[in-house]
């Protein structure tokens, strides 16, 4: 959490957002049936679907305004100006490039790409392996120089994956599950590039081996529990799951 003065400055902005959001909720609620008929039923105001959101929206406007008032009482209008000046200053640009902020970008990049790009379209085992491998290499190896380079590499990989997925219909004629093959190749490439980058450092090399083993083992353990013991079909079942299905349901097990 921030210190008290910065909190009050942030309160001005968060309070404004809450107030605006409250107004939006009220406006949307006023568009709901209040006294007119809905689905053939003549409404009365007290059973209207608008009544509760209207109350919630009004409370958000009231509480947001109270927060703005408290913030302004502490920091004054000069404080608000100072925030805008800070946002335009080199100090703020420095903050955007600070180590902690870069780590934050890295976490967001990995989470967003995993959830919105990979999980729905790529075999879960492969997607989770790449996700964990990238996470471990960026954060467990803990090398500032490596972090930004790996983020860039991962970004390029994700853009390329997006292109592959867009062309997947055409590519499928040549190769089944093109997205899976791409993630598999990219994961190997990613692992090799990291290995080359850290060569010569024994301690980091040891960490790298642990990261590599865990990145492969953890998705298999989690995936097998969910897929075969809890019988949860994976969001996208591709290359590896098809292979595992063949092994799991093979008649040799009796």
């Amino acid at each position, binding site marked *: *959490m*921030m210190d008290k003065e910065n*909190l009050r400055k*942030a*309160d001005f902005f*968060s309070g404004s957002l*809450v107030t605006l959001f409250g107004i939006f*909720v009220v406006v*949307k609620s006023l568009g*709901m049936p209040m006294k007119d008929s809905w*689905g053939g*039923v003549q*409404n*009365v105001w*007290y*059973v209207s*679907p608008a*009544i*509760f*959101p209207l*109350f*919630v*929206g009004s409370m*958000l406007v009231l*509480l*947001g305004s109270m*927060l703005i008032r*408290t913030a302004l009482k502490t920091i004054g209008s000069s404080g608000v100006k100072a925030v805008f000046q800070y946002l335009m200053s080199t100090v703020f640009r420095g903050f955007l490039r600070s180590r902690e902020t870069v*780590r934050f970008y890295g*976490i*967001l990049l*990995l*989470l*967003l790409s*995993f*959830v*919105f790009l990979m*999980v*729905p379209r790529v075999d*879960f085992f492969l997607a*989770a392996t790449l*996700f*964990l491998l990238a*996470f*471990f290499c960026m*954060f*467990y190896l803990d090398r500032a120089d490596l972090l930004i380079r790996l983020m860039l590499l991962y970004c390029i990989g994700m853009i390329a994956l997006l292109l592959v997925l867009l062309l997947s219909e055409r590519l499928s004629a040549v190769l089944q599950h093109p997205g899976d093959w791409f993630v598999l190749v990219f994961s190997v490439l990613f692992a090799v590039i990291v290995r080359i980058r850290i060569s010569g450092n024994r301690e980091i090399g040891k960490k790298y081996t*642990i*990261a590599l083993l*865990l990145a492969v083992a*953890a*998705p298999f353990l*989690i995936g097998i*529990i*969910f897929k075969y013991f*809890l*019988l*949860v*079909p994976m*969001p996208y079942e591709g290359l590896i799951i098809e292979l595992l299905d063949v092994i799991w349901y093979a008649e040799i097990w009796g």
Partner: protein
Amino acid sequence: MLLDRIYAFFEIVASLTADPVTLGILFGSVFLGIMFGAMPGLTSTLGIALLTALTYSMDTPMAMVCLLAIYVGGTYGGSYSSILINIPGTAAAAATAMDGYPLAMKGEGGRAIGLTTTSSAIGTAISMLFVVAISPIISSFALQFTSFEFFLLAFFGILISGTLTSPDLVVKGWISGFLGLFLACVGRDQLQFYPRFTFGIPELDGGIEVVPVLIGAFGIPQIIEVLKTQIQIAKAKKLQKIMPEIGTVIRNFPVIIRSAFIGVGIGSVPGIGEDIAGWVSYGTAKNTSKHPETFGKGEYQGVIASETANNACVGGAMIPLLNLGIPGSPPAAMLLGALMLHGVTPGPMITFEHPTFIMEVAAILLLSSMAMWVVGMLLAKQVVKVLRIPTPLFMPIIGVLCIIGSYSLGLNIFNLYLMLPVGIICYFLISMGYPIAPLVIGVILGPMADENIRRALMVSQGSFMPIFQRPVSLILFLIIVFTVLSQTPWYKRGLAKVKNTLFRSN
């Protein structure tokens, strides 16, 4: 009647202990909970969130064993890292670090862990007694509630949770609660089936699913925060003898009993978690001690007070959860989500719909406390080893579990698209001093508040007068008004004036 209840209780205990699978799950979940609590960055709430997905296919009693055991184990497990590395494994164990770490520095870490294990087990067992004793009273009282009372109760739950959990301004706690209520409005309304805030997205028609929102709100901010700041964990102090002397336990028995009462009391207030119970109990122990100067320097009473209270809070949180459907703490909110998935709707009707359910919960709490004591005594030295695992190694795996867990509940990919943005928004809210517990309570209690206010107004033909005509609703209304007014500067100025006048007259 009482004898029947006692007989039924022991019958449930016997049936649970007679099944080796249940026992295996009990001990396994307690151990897992302790590890979750011990690892800085992981919490019992997150543990329950992840286990909810894994227990989805189990029958309800088995799932309850698993989830309650992880709750009890996780609340206790936080004391390991508090005592041995001075970093609370969970917020619940923050007060434990005050005296636990100085004790470990003196080479008495093992003894401190032994005492916290014993006092935590006693705290949980005492809270179980309250669940058994108080539940029928609250349940029969709650049966008299009408829609107005339920609306006011839900509203009070959100307000009090916002008031007491806010780390900064109280108004932020309330905003958080109302944001939760807004999320509960999304989807088709329950009375007229009108789509509210769905923006034409068919997946939103059924409303926002509670469990993915809870996983996002509790899990994602935790993952971001831990990996962003990357806490450097100190080397854990070595453990010596763990088994505490009976004499020390008996000498501190009054502290244990008082702390258990504090824990149960705080746990039963909606939305207030184990961390507050720990701090209040620690503060009370210090204020009532004959030698308060020793607190903070390695005082056994300090660790006993905080650990007994935070574990007693588990049972306390069960009381409003089971009888009113209002979660007493954030992990209890998660537990409520899990119960709903299993088709159990806690509330006044639970004694009719599932007559033995409260007894089952009490029995599981008792068995969990015993399992926790056994695991704590036998495996403490092994649990300490998990503190050596670096956070960047397990946090991404937790991330994968959060994601696949959210998806598996309902096999809906849309849950993921909801869970992650909610988690990221909650991260920003936390960093700006907004508490998350009221938001979660708002999401859970929103449908109850919405449905009941409209039903109440339908019965009264749009009149609010029944609030002032019914004693329970009038009391609830006055408490709400007082909660709001007590935060205003006029009230504080007035209170100061009264104090001044009294002081002068003396």
